[in-house]
């Protein structure tokens, strides 16, 4: 019994920390509709800056009360200012962009902050000081248990912050404007409110809350470079479960997730990671807008921009160029060395991976943040077959799309029923479930150590043969996807994207068409994953992790969402670039992050989109 009470208290303490992070995220989303991937980075910066301030202010000895609490508060303010810088320099330019672009831009910020933090504070974990006045444990009245004082302080802090935020949002003009803008920001502007000032204020508030949460972790855990992605995924879950933009919902969800963690470890120690995402999936299925969230009210933002351009088959010169590139890819291998061959095979795999995601994002109009799941499931399907059953490669390559396609059918059943950010977050949740299984089910998947020795059959072990096999399979699967876009199935998909109700009214079954697209995209990603596994000879959980999903997103967006061949060029450019970057510089994250930010700011229609516009302008100029 005592153990259960202690565990419940632990859960409450975690819930408070989680709520601080999630409250900032949800407030920022509510007003700006931006899913801030960099929120975890702000949390991490809060911890690092807090560590520097607290240890520096203290000099050599342990920090006094002023040194510690002053340092924590200063760190929160400093991170708030960092948030202001990010908003003013970057996000302010993206409020009218499609919702994926700000998200990618903030992922660029994640990479930049990771490298900057590494450069400033170094790779080693930093141990924070204890909080003065809250060291040791306290006797709990009535219960007769001892519990750490600092954790008790955190438990109390959550409701206090919730109360302060409630006062801010209901008793100040700033707060009322924020709530109004959360409902309808265009109308707030039409009433004479300068939204830019409001947004900057909201970013300061949200970032400062993240910084505070980070700095308050100092006495609890060491500061390290993995804090950002670890916390952002949890915060996403809390915000989505609570309902985007809802503070009360975030508080409830933080309690739910905090306790789930605490008791999950006792009851289901092996599936703690899966458990959280399962709960999120269940909540979203039962309440598509979260526990306390409301369906977005008012006019849809779709009317703001011009309609999506109609996707036509590429003009003849472009098609000839594409065929020439393909022919070149098939003609080159005999003249290439082993390294160049493996690069070529990788590129082919990434082209297929990106093309499969593009089916969802371009014609499908659905955002998937978790496409790596299907890549990874295909890879693991092949690897498990090879490892446990010593099956031949052909069986692995045949099973991979089936396994990934089935996973796509299963996960997609939920995802295609939601829309926008909620659907995207659900894809992320399912990808994290798949990742957790690969990571935690050590007996079968090898956990973090992965599965080694996944080599092609002897007949294909020669690099040249294997490369041709990869090229042929990827080209075939890629053509199938391109074909699907221009088939009636693709028309139906695009009709649903452009206007769901109208498409449904002429008899297009919305859910089955989207569901099928989801499964098809998953199956094709599965083939890519299996080929990748055989090419590398091994699989690891990182194949299903968030950065891999972001890779796919970047390839598609770099190429251009609204062009059919965009993902091909995007994959070639992105995979080529990152390969060179990793080889050329230790600061590849910084360079890549800056490149993402520049891409989002200056090439919002992607490489192929920009090339097409230029080409069309030239054709128009040639015909007076």
């Amino acid at each position, binding site marked *: 019994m005592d153990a259960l009470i202690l565990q419940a208290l632990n859960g409450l303490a975690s819930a408070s920390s989680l709520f601080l992070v999630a409250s900032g995220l949800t407030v920022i989303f509510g007003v700006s509709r931006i899913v801030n991937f960099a929120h975890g980075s702000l949390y991490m910066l809060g911890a690092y800056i807090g560590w520097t301030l607290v240890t520096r202010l203290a000099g050599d000895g342990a920090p006094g009360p002023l040194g510690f609490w002053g340092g924590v508060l200063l760190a929160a303010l400093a991170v708030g200012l960092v948030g202001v810088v990010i908003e003013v320099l970057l996000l302010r330019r993206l409020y009218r962009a499609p919702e994926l672009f700000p998200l990618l831009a903030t992922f660029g910020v994640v990479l930049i902050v990771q490298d900057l933090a590494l450069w400033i504070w170094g790779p080693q974990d930093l141990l924070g000081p204890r909080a003065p006045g809250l060291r040791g444990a306290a006797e709990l009245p009535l219960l007769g248990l001892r519990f750490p004082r600092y954790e008790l302080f955190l438990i109390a802090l959550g409701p206090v912050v919730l109360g302060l935020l409630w006062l801010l949002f209901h008793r100040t003009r700033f707060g009322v404007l924020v*709530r*109004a803008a959360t409902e309808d920001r265009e*109308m707030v502007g039409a*009433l004479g409110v300068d939204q830019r000032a409001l947004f900057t204020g909201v970013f300061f508030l949200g970032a400062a809350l993240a910084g505070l949460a980070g700095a308050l972790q100092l006495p609890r855990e060491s500061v390290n470079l993995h804090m950002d992605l670890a916390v952002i995924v949890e915060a996403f879950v809390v915000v989505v479960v609570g309902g985007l933009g809802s503070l009360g919902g975030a508080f409830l969800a933080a309690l739910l997730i905090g306790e789930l963690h605490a008791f999950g470890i006792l009851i289901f120690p092996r599936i703690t990671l899966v458990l959280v995402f399962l709960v999120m999936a269940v909540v979203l299925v039962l309440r598509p807008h979260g526990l306390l969230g409301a369906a977005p009210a008012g006019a849809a933002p779709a009317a703001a921009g*011009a309609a999506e351009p109609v996707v036509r088959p590429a003009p003849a010169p472009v098609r000839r160029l594409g065929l020439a590139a393909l022919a070149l890819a098939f003609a080159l291998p005999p003249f290439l060395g082993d390294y160049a061959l493996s690069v070529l095979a990788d590129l082919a795999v990434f082209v297929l991976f990106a093309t499969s995601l593009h089916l969802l994002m371009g014609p499908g109009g659905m955002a998937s943040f978790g496409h790596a799941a299907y890549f990874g499931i295909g890879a693991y399907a092949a690897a498990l077959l090879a490892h446990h059953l010593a099956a031949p490669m052909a069986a692995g390559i045949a099973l991979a799309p089936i396994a990934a396609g089935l996973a796509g059918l299963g996960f997609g059943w939920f995802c295609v029923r939601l829309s926008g950010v909620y659907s995207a977050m659900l894809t992320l949740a399912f990808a994290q479930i798949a990742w957790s299984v690969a990571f935690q089910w050590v007996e079968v998947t090898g956990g973090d150590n992965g599965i080694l020795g996944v080599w092609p059959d002897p007949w294909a072990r020669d690099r040249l043969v294997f490369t041709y096999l990869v090229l042929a399979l990827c080209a075939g699967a890629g053509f199938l996807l391109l074909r699907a876009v221009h088939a009636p199935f693709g028309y139906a998909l695009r009709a649903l994207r452009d206007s769901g109700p109208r498409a449904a009214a002429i008899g297009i079954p919305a859910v089955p068409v989207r569901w099928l697209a989801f499964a098809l995209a998953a199956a094709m990603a599965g083939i890519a994953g299996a080929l990748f596994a055989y090419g590398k000879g091994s699989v690891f959980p990182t194949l299903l992790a968030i950065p891999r999903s972001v890779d796919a997103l970047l390839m598609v967006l770099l190429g251009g969402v609204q062009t059919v061949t965009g993902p091909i060029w995007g994959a070639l450019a992105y995979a080529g670039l990152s390969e060179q970057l990793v080889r050329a510089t230790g600061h590849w994250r910084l360079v890549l992050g800056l490149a993402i930010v520049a891409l989002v700011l200056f090439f919002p229609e992607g490489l192929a989109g920009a090339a097409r516009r230029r080409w069309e302008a030239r054709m128009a100029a040639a015909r007076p």
Partner: protein
Amino acid sequence: MTGPAAAPPLLAVEGLEARYGRARILAGLTFHVARGEVVVLLGRNGAGKSTTLKAIMGLVPPAAGRVRLEGRDLAGQPPFRIARAGLGYVPEERRIFAGLTVRENLAVGMRPAPAGQRGWTEERLFALFPALAALRDRPAGRMSGGEQQMLAIARTLAGNPRLLLLDEPSEGLAPVVVERLAEAVRALRAEGLGILVSEQNLRLAAAVGDRALILETGAIRWAGPLATLLAEEALRARYLAV
């Protein structure tokens, strides 16, 4: 109609164009609204009435043309600057903040009055729309359509505009509520406010309008005193009959 040459009209719209993508919605509108005048923008569904008001307000960026408020060109400015310059916009869908109380809705719109102008206070707004006074602490989402329309107008008035843009205010309201709206519009006109109101039917227009503009496929087809329009059956049949 126009005053002395030195004083520009309250609102002067010159050659206003608007586009959605490649489609031209407004084909160069030119008209004006004077102080204390109610101009009714009439036309069938899709004629471009809402777009005209949105283009004036900057919510749809004008592709060409000028929008002058007392001679100062506002075209191309962001909506919040246009609002601060003295234009008030009440959208067709009302777009009240459903989760905010009546008083909070008013607080969002509230801005200090320019020097020399009698500013709107909560009390004056409640005097104009007595129905709102009793509901002051109720979430706006839990009010009737007529009450929401009154709140939307009151919220815009709280910013002390000199010209009010009303987009189909009578849409979906019971006749008795429309009559109350008409009273309020007449009171505002008496205060010297210029009002440009779009309507699809003549019910409210007949009760409050001074002049009428008839819009068809984004261009003004007829302009003149409202009395003329009401007198000439053939004119109404040609432009307004469905």
